[in-house]
């Protein structure tokens, strides 16, 4: 095994409230993995355990086949970029970035060369002499990244690195971050609650839900076939209709809906947002248009359907679309059936 292996990690701060329940994941060298989940799902705790800042109650962490149990953080050779950066306020930019190399005992020529290379890599060439207390949020973020990257960590961990920045800056930094991680082939574990960040950076995404791994897969896989109603909702698929499944179809307030797989019992059926057409053959839904949101290539219509409630569908923006308040009918093109999730 040449990467990270996390086996059955359990952790709780108070006896009756476990934070992590049997976490299991693995990461190849050079792979970029995103830990995605809403706040409070335990992802930062998991990160701290991998880093060695916290000890798990149960389970083990392996790096390149070695069990890291009992190994203190400073010997793990991992890099961690903190959520609010934790730049050393009494050191200039250069000393912050050089810190890890100094701890390795690198020569001063090597240190100053690596520092200026790394600062150039993160887009801050010539910032060596700056006082970290005078940097803008985006600059601090880049210095923190440079500091984590400079010692060439085996595993780079980023804890919500873009969390405290404004939207425009985030998009820019996300772009740069992807470039830097790709060009350095850096093995990276990226913690975020933002699915767009996770999708655009990661080879694989680990979706976490209240202390458990809900699903692991490539971004496309997770979006196209979520494994649970939670994952579906979390990635923005909100058209979930309750019903009773019998074999390959489910009886719902909207009528009989064909299912992809044989199931039986109470389910939530997922209607994909791109399934609706304004005309054609198939399951017909009638409702009032509540909202029309232009998204660029597509436009979202929110329908109030009497038997169920609100459903959101996307249509190509090129076609003529109804206005809010209009009563319309849409036809669902359900292909080879809908995904469904058993309700427990």
């Amino acid at each position: 095994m040449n990467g990270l292996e996390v086996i059955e990690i359990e952790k709780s701060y108070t006896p009756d409230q476990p934070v992590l329940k049997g976490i299991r994941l693995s990461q190849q060298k050079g792979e970029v993995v995103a830990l995605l989940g809403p706040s409070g799902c335990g992802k930062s705790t998991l990160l701290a355990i991998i880093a060695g800042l916290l000890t798990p109650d149960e389970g083990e962490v392996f790096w390149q086949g070695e069990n890291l149990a009992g190994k203190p953080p400073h010997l793990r050779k991992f890099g961690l970029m903190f959520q609010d950066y934790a730049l050393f306020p009494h050191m200039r930019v250069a000393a912050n970035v050089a810190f890890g190399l100094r701890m390795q005992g690198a020569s001063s020529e090597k240190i100053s060369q690596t520092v200026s290379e790394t600062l150039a890599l993160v887009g801050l060439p010539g910032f060596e002499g700056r006082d970290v207390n005078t940097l803008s949020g985006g600059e601090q973020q880049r210095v923190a990244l440079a500091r984590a990257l400079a010692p060439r960590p085996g595993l780079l961990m980023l804890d919500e690195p873009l969390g405290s920045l404004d939207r425009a800056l985030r998009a820019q930094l996300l772009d740069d971050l992807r470039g830097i991680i790709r060009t350095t082939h850096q093995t990276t574990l990226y913690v975020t609650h933002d699915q767009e960040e996770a999708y655009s950076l990661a080879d694989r995404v680990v979706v976490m839900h209240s202390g458990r791994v809900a699903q692991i897969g490539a971004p496309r896989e997770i979006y196209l076939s979520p494994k649970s109603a939670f994952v579906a909702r979390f990635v923005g698929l909100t058209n979930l209709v309750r019903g009773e499944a019998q074999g390959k179809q489910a009886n719902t307030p909207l009528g009989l809906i064909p299912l992809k797989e044989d199931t039986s019992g109470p389910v939530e059926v997922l209607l994909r947002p791109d399934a609706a057409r304004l005309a054609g053959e198939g399951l017909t839904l009638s409702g009032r248009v509540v909202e029309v949101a232009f998204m660029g290539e597509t436009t979202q219509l929110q329908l109030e359907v009497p038997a169920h409630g609100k459903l959101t569908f996307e249509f190509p923006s090129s076609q003529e679309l109804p206005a809010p308040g209009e009563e319309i009918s849409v036809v669902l093109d359900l292909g080879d059936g809908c995904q469904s999730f058993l309700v427990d």
Partner: protein
Amino acid sequence: MNTGKMKFRWQTLLWLLPLGFLAVFYFYPLGSILAVSLERAENGIGAVILEVWGSPSIRKAVGFTFWQAGLSTLLTLMIGLPGAYLFGRYEFQGKQLLRALTSVPFVMPTLVVAAAFDSLLGGRGWLNLGLMQLFNLDSAPIQVGQTLTAILLAHIFYNTTIVIRLVGDFWTNLDPRLTQAARMLGAKPWQAWLRVTLPLLAPALLAAALLVFIFDFTSFGVILILGGPKFATIEVEIFYQAISLFNLPAAAVLASIQLITTLALTTIYTRLVGKLSRPLTRRSEQVTLQRLSTWRQRAMAGWLSTLMLVLFVTPLVSLGLRSVVQLEPERRQRTLEEGPALTGAFYRSLWEDSEDSMFTATPGEALLTSMGYAGSTVVISLLLGFPAAWMLAWQKEDLLSRVLDPLLMLPIGTSAVTLGLGFIVALNRPPLDLRTSPALIPLAHSLVALPFVVRSLTPALRTIQPQLRQAAAMLGANPGQVIRFIDLPLVGRALLGSAVFAFTISLGEFGATALVGRPDRPTVPMMIYRYLGQPGALNYGRALALSTILMLATAAGMLLIERVRVGEGAEF
């Protein structure tokens, strides 16, 4: 739980040291002053008040104290507000430097400021001697020294920076879109100012005015030297009553008036500072600051900067220059033989025993004495301040901390002269008979320095978040290296900064020293005060030389503090 109890005891212990110190050296002396005032109240408290009010000199002193403080505050606001506007709304070249310059006067010892104004405007100052030389006059043509004007000028010099800092910083974070919104809704510029900007600034303005008033109200050294015998405030009157007339009960009554007034004002000030943190969205400087673009803005900035430079720099430069220039004839000469000349004689004479000196100590010895006191002050105030700051930094929400935090700040609002009087009244009899102990001065200085030490240590200690240690560990630092590279440098800098602060405060302290200082072992400020009151060019020169040394030492200290500061500035 068991650990919870242990923790509580540990915290209480940390508080014990600074609290015990305050109890013995702050509350006990002040209580003694009040007790002495009330001892005379056998016929009821009204008799005391009537007796005090019956004395014309005391009535005059109380009236003058309020009058000069009010007038000084008004003038300080008038000079400071345009400055606050300039700093709060504009970005321009040299702003940092100008900002640093405006804060120089604030940290200067009162005697340095008094000596500086005397060297500029006094009877033996540049202006008068220059005019006398120019027009061949026999006496000083401008009588600014020993007038209200001199006092007012020195107070403006001292306190303008408070207005610029408090109001200017508040202005910097005030969203300009609020004013813009008012303008969009049809308000004329002056209407927007009156209805939006002014009400929003009001708490900051009021707080600044009150703080300036408190400082002017308790001003001592400036008035003693620049006002002369004609202008006595409550502070000066306490000094005369206690030291010259040795009428401790009268001094105690005056000090009680002083105490009650400053306590009331400080309470109002604290309330206002609380109100300052009203939920306004604070905007970053990139949004609120604009460059000087029109010629009117440039002219305004140029005029204000020049005014500030003249006000803040001239007196200090005048002091430094006057201390190395021979302008007056020596005692036995009628006129200067070769006109004004550069001289190092004043500095050289500091280590000589002059035959006409009325002191047992030379100025050089006074310098050593002052440094000794300052060193002891550093040790005492850090020993007391560090545990208190540690508690405030880490147990901020703790009930004990919330109660004790304002208690630690009390000495700031108490006049140093009153503190000194309290020492005389309380500590000269058993169980604490320290009247002749050399420890009295550093103890008094530590009391003055303690609030500042706590206020500058606390935010620095707070910057040491556990995250920084974790970050260092993640970068490969072992526990020893974490202490060496993270904890020690951060705490060390904070300690060094606070030590320098305490040292400079002690070096320049005059109010308490004037009351508890021992005549046979004078400090530098005591020496300056005595020399300024004596005739002779050499004595005057020595006073200015000592003041210049004190000024440079203070400036060097402040520069050092600025260099080692980490994170946010001190909290006030």
